[in-house]
């Protein structure tokens, strides 16, 4: 169980958070213009890499804010935490 530095609350136990999967997947502005394949790419396709991954997290049992996090899934080392809308750091 790791410790997450919530950008709004500070360091809290992982048990207060829930993970929302891969980050920086933008919902298409004009879904109707997309082919089935393009829509499926947005809807279903997610990376699950062993290594550095950009993820969405929610401080579900705290401030309830969503934010982004860069985590190495192989050792749970957290490289960065940043607010929604902020540019992802270069890792």
């Amino acid at each position, binding site marked *: *169980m*790791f*410790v997450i530095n919530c950008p709004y609350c500070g360091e809290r*136990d992982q048990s207060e958070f829930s993970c*929302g999967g891969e980050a920086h997947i933008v*919902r*298409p502005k*004009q*879904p*109707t213009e*997309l082919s*089935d394949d393009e*829509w*499926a790419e947005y*809807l279903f396709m997610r990376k699950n890499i062993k290594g550095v991954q950009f993820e*969405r997290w*929610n401080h*579900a049992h705290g401030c*309830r*804010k*969503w934010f982004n996090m860069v985590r190495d899934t192989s*050792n*749970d080392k957290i490289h960065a935490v940043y607010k*929604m*809308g902020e540019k992802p750091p270069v890792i």
Partner: protein
Amino acid sequence: MTKYRINKTRFVDQTKTVSFTFDGKKYHGFEGDTLASALLSNGIHLVGRSFKYHRPRGIMSCGSEEPNAICQINDNTDLTEPNVRATEIELYEGLKASSQNCWPSLNFDIGGINNLISPFIPAGFYYKTFMWPKSFWKKIYEPLIRLSAGLGKSPTQPDPDIYDHKHEHCDVLVIGGGISGIVSAKIAAKNNLKTILIEDKNILGGSTIYQNNKNFIIDNQKSNEWLMNEISELEKLDNLIIKTRTSLAAFHSYNYLLAKENISDHLPLDKKNGSIRQRLWKIRADKVIVAAGAIERPLIFNNNDRPGIILANSVKKYLDFYGVSTGLNNIIFTNNDSAYETAVSLFEKGISVKIVDIRKKSSSNIVKNAEDLGIKIYWNSTVVNTFGYKKIKSIEIMNLSEDGSNVTGNKHKIQCDCLSISGGWTPMVHMHTQSGGKLDFREIDQVFVPTEKSENHINVGSCNGDFELEEIVKNTNNKVKKFLNINEGSFDKISVVCSKESEKKNIWLLPNTISESKTKSFIDFQNDSTAKDIKLALREGFKSIEHVKRYTTTGMATDQGKLSNMHALGIIADTAGVKMGTLGTTTFRPPFTPLTFGAIVGRSVGKFFDIVRKTSIHEWHVQNNAKFENVGQWKRPWYYPINNENLHEAVQRESKAARDSAGILDASTLGKIDIQGSDASEFLNRVYTNAWSKLGIGKCRYGLMLNEDGMVYDDGVTTRLGENHYLMTTTTGGAANVLSKLEDYLQTEWPELDVYLTSVTDHYSTASICGPNSKKILKKLFPNKDFSDEAFPHMSYQDAIIDKIECRIMRISFTGELSYEINVESKYGKSLWENCIAAGEEYKITPYGTETMHLLRAEKGFIIVGQDTDGTMTPIDLQMDWIVSKKKYDFIGKRSLYRSDTMREDRKQLVGLLTDDPNEILEEGAQIVSELDKKPVEMIGHVTSSYFSPNLNKSIALAVVKGGKKMNGQKLIVPMENKNINVTVSDFIFLDKENKRINA
């Protein structure tokens, strides 16, 4: 004193006698004893039978690694505890222990016959034997396997003890209170760091605390005396918490550790009562210093499992710590120097001792000490057999060949009543690897040692592979200083004198004159796996250590192979001709020693197991005999039986009353979300499938919410309270998820929207009154209000006052009847409800529960999300095309409704089903088929809701059927276990399709 209590020590108080029973017989020990030391002081070695062969087994160690001496505690079968290690349980007055895995008794065990037929039950016996004939499985094999499975007996009653959890934070956590842990804790605490030292025994000091040998000197004192002084110094330090009787269970990432503290296990029965039994500590430490020590290895030779064969250092502990001699005529069998300390201790107490050593010589101080005392040493020798069924009586030894691979010369028999064995030491790297650390193999003494990489934890002392006293103290001092960035350590100028081992030799499986298929050289004592089994597994093609482990069950017993894993690895490496370091190890998983379920669960039992949510009207339901149903965490009235009615009878009566006169439902549990902000209308447009911009203030609208994949997620009525203010209702079970989902979209996809969401589920209580007389009841409750259809039409809301209490009245209907939902602040809920009941009395207003609600809405063909849908239903599948806006450019899930898969016409679609026999009620979940002859029979759908409708006087059901939309009137079959039920597909609106009743 008994014959075997030959020594007085400071650790056992021989003035305080403690009585206990073992297998029903009464014995005495002293305060400070463990069950194991007390049994040994009474001359009892035989304490259990082995798992597979039922061989007699004795106490083998003095700690958590014990494989044999596991007992059943407490003779009350309701509350008994199995598999407790006698070496760990502290003796208390009234302790009742018994042996396990034997019948009819420990001394005469029928299962012992397995020992005779052992050649026929090798590793993998189960897999190979219980294959055929197939018919034998259920009646013969399975009962047989179940009968022989397991060791102890489980209790049959709920655990009456209290367990506790505690969170703790510290700068430094030191695991292990032996000499290296004490050195570490002192350095840390002296430097203003909040330090916790945990130790699983009842006192600190590890094995040094009873090391009184003159060859081990620290600062001119015997090492045990020096350590005793250090401990008393340690206890004076303010920022150090010392937790004894506390064992580490798990070491997780980010230095999160679990430790179990025994609080009252060691207390006499009359003092246990009411006390917490165990506490689970959840520790988050900035830095962790692991000083877990090492476990002595056994040696693997023929018949190495007899009672009276004990690890050498344990023999020393029984002698020097507990004052108990494990035998009066001892032989020590070793491959290293540490066992000589035991020999010297025994000799100094006047007990006969001889030594068998596989090495050719050793010239260290401790060996010289033994030689000077005149102790007989058989160099370059090995034990090839042992004798004595229930207690060792003698051994046979032979000389080793030059390379140690064989035996030479003649057998030499020696009498004994105890054989102490030592195969060297295994560092306890469990904690290190649990935290994610890796291991290196050290060739010279064949041990895995931690690879130090982490910035936040280190290993010190013998768990790090430092075995000599001098290197333990000095390396620990230097390492801890560096780890904690401290310039001056407390032990910089310490002087340590100790015996140093120079000659090292290790043979994993000692040679014998007879072939190993005829020997019983035990590796895993608890699971009875032998060297022969390991070799068999290798011959049968198993290569990976993980596979060999599972096939032979080596290391899979309750001791998790603390004594056996290294030998299994060694024998595999030798047999396969590879280097041991290349094999890797099996995975060290938490917990380090078994944890009680009680400690894991803590206080979260009984009514604290889960949250129970009750509405403010709950007490009224209880007083009126309601039966409750769990909906999420909510308790909802299910039905209100009168005069011993069953569920069916009550529901028939309630349903009829609701349609004939008036019914009342507690709808407080529906999720309620308050939505405000200038973009609230636009937000609803995006999350619901239908349009919201034009909804007038004071109006209500039903909405359907999809997932982005187009599947129905939730539904409910939303009311526009003001220009920028809505109140959304959700399903009872879906409330929390809907709020999370909406928050997610607001925060991440549409941060530009000015919208604020607040959960108000618990803030309002709701009484829902329906039926043709509902308007009359409302008029009685609110005499000044105009309830005409013009002034207060269906799907609208108005504010009102009742007894000075503000209400919101929504005219909405989930039953198809004329219906009003009255909302008040929750604290007034019960009062509102009682007012409604009083006002409705003349119309025989009938409270109804969830079951009737389900029936009424099914008559009208209203879906319940989660019952008629299962996450694979689109609104089109539900024949709810009417609610899907064609004009809106986008909403959550819209694009998915045009995917080729969601547009398939043969998807499962919502239909009604009528049974040919109107009295036949289908089972919810039953499969539906169209023809039975074609095999395999194709299942084309299933029943989602089914009831007997008292208002229609027939059975009705909702179902999802492939291509069901076009099947109206078609005959289908619902095959059940005993019969096939014929059904006809129908419209799913069974009652009042014209919606007349809503304005009745």
